[in-house]
Structure formats: structure tokens, C-alpha cells
């Protein structure tokens, strides 16, 4: 298959563009000199600031691509997306609590745990609501997701207003809500990369059963799948992925929706190739979107979530229109 080398090449190219882009544009020659160990100011800027940020963006994009693929597979709905299903909103609420409410445990531990709890709780809530309401089809699930996301957003806003004394933390929360990759230190970047690879491995374990579930619940049971147990496990795994993406990149809309679609078009609907392809597409999209966020309005930075929402909104409407027509 020629698709894989092309995808990897496209990712490397977008990382190069990301490293070059910014208030201060760099040439590939600058990058080569910096990688060779040149420690002038431009080299330090690249190695200490820009490259970690670009690579972190790629990881966050990869996680969003994985999360979107898992949720679309579990809900058997090509319109499912962590952002729309409330799981990203739940993770953001968890992160907000961790940042604004003084808790006994260290924040570096509390934040990812609460982000995960929020993502998982919100997704289970959406599943519960649509089951109770008897609306397990695509539209019912999305409406339940929109409702849950709205309530979670309101709760988050309330927390931000009620605890707005902590101005410094509030700034961080706000950047989270609007979506944005923080520049990590190299060790933190290493952690993020390890988490991303672990998430890819975890979701690949689900691949075959996601394919079987895609035959419909009746056929999946006839083919020996314990459907309820698998859905519960897959939602848990998807929530881990989304929580990791939100903890490092905030609320970035539509990447989890668009990446699986583009990947399905490239490698087909089987999940074993789809998951890594979707991760690569997500990484490319977020790396480029982050480059735009940093360089479009210098010296200001546009929040990443706004860039992806502006680009992804029309994509979603297009998908919806095609689906409604079908």
C-alpha cells in the first residue's frame, strides 16, 4: 500500500512546516543548524520552544484521531465525536475542577484522573440517556450528547465564575476551553509520546471487535461478541484516549470527527488499518492547525480550538447533509 509512506511523509512535512511557522519564520536551514547543535538564539527557540510544541500538537492530534475512531466504532455512527458526545466536555470539566478547586493531592496527578473521570462519566451519561429515551439511533445519541455537553459547559462556566479569584489558574482554564497545546518540556513531551503510543496499542486491541460490532448488534452477538461488555470496555478505553488528548490539548473540536473520515477514505473501514491511519491524519491536521494558530495573526496567537472549529464546522455540516440525503 502506498498510502502509509505518503501519510508518514505528510506528517514529517507538516512537522517541518510547524517548526518553521510562527511569529518569527524559520528556514529549513535554521532547523538543520539547530538540530546539529547550534545554540544561538534561533536554535534555542527552535529546540526548547517550537519543536516540543509542534510534536506535542502532533501527539494530541493523534490521540484525537484515535478517540474519534473508537467512538465512531462504538456508536456505529460516523457523526460521533468526542467533542460532540460530551466526553471532551466532561474531561474539560474534570480538568477545570483540578485546576480551580484546591485539593489535597498534587495537581499533576489529579488533573488527568479527573479528566478521565469526566470523559468516562459524560459518555456513560449519554449512553444512559439515549437508552432510557429509546433513542439509540444516530440522531438521538447526538442530541443526548449535545444536551450533556451543554450542561457540562454551563457547570464549567459556573466554576470559572465562582472561583475567579485564582486569576492565574483561570487563564489556564480559559486556554483549555478554547483549545491549545501548551509547550511541554522534553521530559513531559516524552511522557505524552509514551501515552500516545500506549493509547494506539490499547485501541488496536479493540480493532477486530469494533469491526464485528459494525455488523450490527444482532449479528455481533450471533458472531460471539459479548456486546454490552465490549461497549462498556471500549467506552472506557476511548475515555482514556480523550482524557489524554484533553489534558494536553484542551477542547479541540472536530479533529476527532474528521480524521476517521479522511482515514476511512484512504485505507477503508476495517479498524486495524483505520486506527493508525486516523491517528496519523489527526496528527497532521492538528500540527498544521497549530502552525496556523501561531502564525496567522502575529504577535497574537489564535486558540487552536478556534482554528479547528472554523475549519471543521463546515466539514461536519457537509457530512450531516450527505447523511440526511442518504
Amino acid at each position, binding site marked *: 500500500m502506498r498510502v502509509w509512506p505518503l501519510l508518514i511523509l505528510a506528517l514529517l512535512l507538516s512537522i517541518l512546516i510547524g517548526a518553521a511557522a510562527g511569529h518569527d519564520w524559520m528556514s529549513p536551514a535554521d532547523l538543520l543548524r539547530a538540530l546539529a547543535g547550534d545554540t544561538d538564539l534561533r536554535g534555542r527557540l527552535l529546540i526548547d520552544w517550537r519543536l516540543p510544541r509542534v510534536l506535542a500538537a502532533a501527539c494530541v492530534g493523534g490521540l484525537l484521531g484515535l478517540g474519534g475512531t473508537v467512538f465512531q466504532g462504538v456508536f*456505529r*455512527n460516523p457523526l460521533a465525536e468526542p467533542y460532540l458526545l460530551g466526553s471532551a466536555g466532561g474531561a474539560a470539566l474534570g480538568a477545570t475542577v483540578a485546576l480551580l478547586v484546591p485539593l489535597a493531592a498534587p495537581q499533576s496527578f489529579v488533573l488527568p484522573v479527573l479528566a478521565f473521570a469526566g470523559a468516562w462519566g459524560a459518555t456513560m451519561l449519554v449512553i444512559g440517556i439515549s437508552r432510557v429515551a429509546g433513542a439509540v439511533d444516530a440522531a438521538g445519541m447526538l442530541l443526548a450528547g449535545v444536551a450533556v455537553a451543554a450542561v457540562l459547559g454551563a457547570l464549567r462556566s459556573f466554576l470559572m465564575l465562582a472561583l475567579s479569584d485564582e486569576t492565574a489558574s483561570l487563564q489556564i482554564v480559559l486556554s483549555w476551553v478554547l483549545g491549545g497545546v501548551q509547550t511541554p518540556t522534553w521530559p513531559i513531551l516524552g511522557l505524552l509520546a509514551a501515552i500516545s503510543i500506549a493509547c494506539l496499542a490499547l485501541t488496536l486491541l479493540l480493532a*477486530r471487535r469494533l*469491526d*464485528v460490532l*459494525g*455488523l*450490527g448488534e*444482532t*449479528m455481533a*452477538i*450471533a*458472531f*460471539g*461478541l*459479548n456486546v454490552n461488555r465490549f461497549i462498556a470496555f471500549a467506552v472506557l478505553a476511548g475515555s482514556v484516549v480523550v482524557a489524554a488528548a484533553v489534558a494536553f490539548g484542551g477542547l479541540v473540536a472536530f479533529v476527532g470527527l474528521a480524521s476517521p473520515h479522511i482515514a*476511512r477514505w484512504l485505507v*477503508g*473501514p*476495517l479498524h486495524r488499518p483505520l486506527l493508525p491511519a486516523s491517528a496519523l491524519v489527526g496528527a497532521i491536521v492538528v500540527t498544521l492547525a497549530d502552525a496556523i494558530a501561531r502564525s496567522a495573526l502575529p504577535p497574537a496567537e489564535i486558540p487552536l480550538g478556534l482554528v479547528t472549529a472554523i475549519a471543521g464546522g463546515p466539514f461536519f455540516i457537509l457530512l450531516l447533509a450527505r447523511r440526511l440525503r442518504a
Partner: protein
Amino acid sequence: MTGIAANNLSVRRNGATLLDGLSLSLGPTGSVAIIGPNGAGKSTLLKVLTGIDRPTAGTVQVGERDLASLSNAQRANTIGYLPQYFEPHWDLGVAELVRLGADRSDRLAAGAIEAVTEKFELTELGRRRWSTLSGGERARVLLATVLVVNPPVLLADEPAASLDIRHRLDVIRALTRRPDRLSVVVVHDLDLAFTFFERVVVIDRGKVVADGPAKSLIDDTRIDEAFSVRFDRLKTPDGWLLRASTGP
């Protein structure tokens, strides 16, 4: 030899009784047509026998064992199920679907995929995707996907109901022409039921109301009662024609 038996099965849902203490012993081999009016409980019976739905009361026995005691993998390999409607959520290719069917067995016979691909003439469909297939092609792909593991019991819920007559006959023949398999098929078309199947079971209101060899059951007036019409029975060279009487 496997065979499947329903012991006093009841299914009640939302106050409605779908199966009402139904008992039926099938197999270990042969072809059985299940007929009955709409809402008689035919589809429910098949889903309970497959293990897709759980009965409110009663048990299902597969060979010597209780269906509930089989592992999911054992169940999936023993009982093949063909649904009335099948529409995969993702637009899979023909070979991908057959492969998914084959993957439910951990002891797939060598060459099983090739054999089933050839048998159902799927070779030329190759890499075509589900959305591009005609109704007849879809039926063949679904049959191949379910039969690739060669299950000793096959339960089919009117899989050919929406096809034209030639494809319907193809499907019915594929389902019934295996002497080493038990094929239980919910059949809408009574002529097909009495022409192609060895045994016919009539179900009405969640109960078996008539059961016997196709040849001797054809005259049974309980069929007329179950369908609430009077049938004219017309003998043809290769079977029977049941026509709802239009006379007084």
C-alpha cells in the same frame, strides 16, 4: 451430531407474550421450515435459539448441552444465524466481510474461505464494497459470511424475502442442500416451505400449533386456522401450491 431443542420457552416483553411455553425438538440434521402469520413469534424463536435474545423462562438445548452454558465462541461456531435484514454500518468489502465471518472460528478448516468464495460465486465480486452490491449479491455474501465456519446448525430468518424469485430459490437451495447440517428457516412463502423442506412447523401466538413432515402436513387444516384463511391445495409436478381461497 448436534440438533437444537426448545424446552418450554416463554418470552414476555412490555406486557406482550411473544413465546408462550413453546417446546420443539429439531435435528440433528435435516431441513425445517417455520411458518406462521405475522407476529406469531417466529423471529423471536430464532433469536432465542441463537442466543441473541434471552427467554423469560425455559431453556434451549444444543446437542447435549444447555445453550447458556456454551461460551460465546462455541455458540458462534455451532449456530449460524442469518438475519431478516442485514446492513453493515461500515461499507466493508466482500472479502473483508467473509474474513470477519471466518474469524469467529479458531479452528477454521484449511481452504474454507476459498471454498465458500467459490461456492457462492464471489470471486468476481473481489474487492467490491457492500454498497455497490445488488440484492442477490448481498444475499450470497451474507450466506458465505455465515456459512464459512460450516456451523452444524443454521437458523435463518426469511433471508430471501426481499429477493426476486430466482435469487430466492438460489438462497433456499443453498440453505437446505446440506445433508450434514440442520437448517431451520423461517419461510414466508408457503409453497417454498412445502416444496423444499422435509419438515414444516406451524407457529401461532407463541406456540407450535402443527408440526410434521411436509408431505403429510400439507392437508392439515390447522395451517388454515393459524393464517385465518382457507387454502386451496393444488398439486403441481414438483410440489404443492397453497392458494388462499377466494371462494365462499
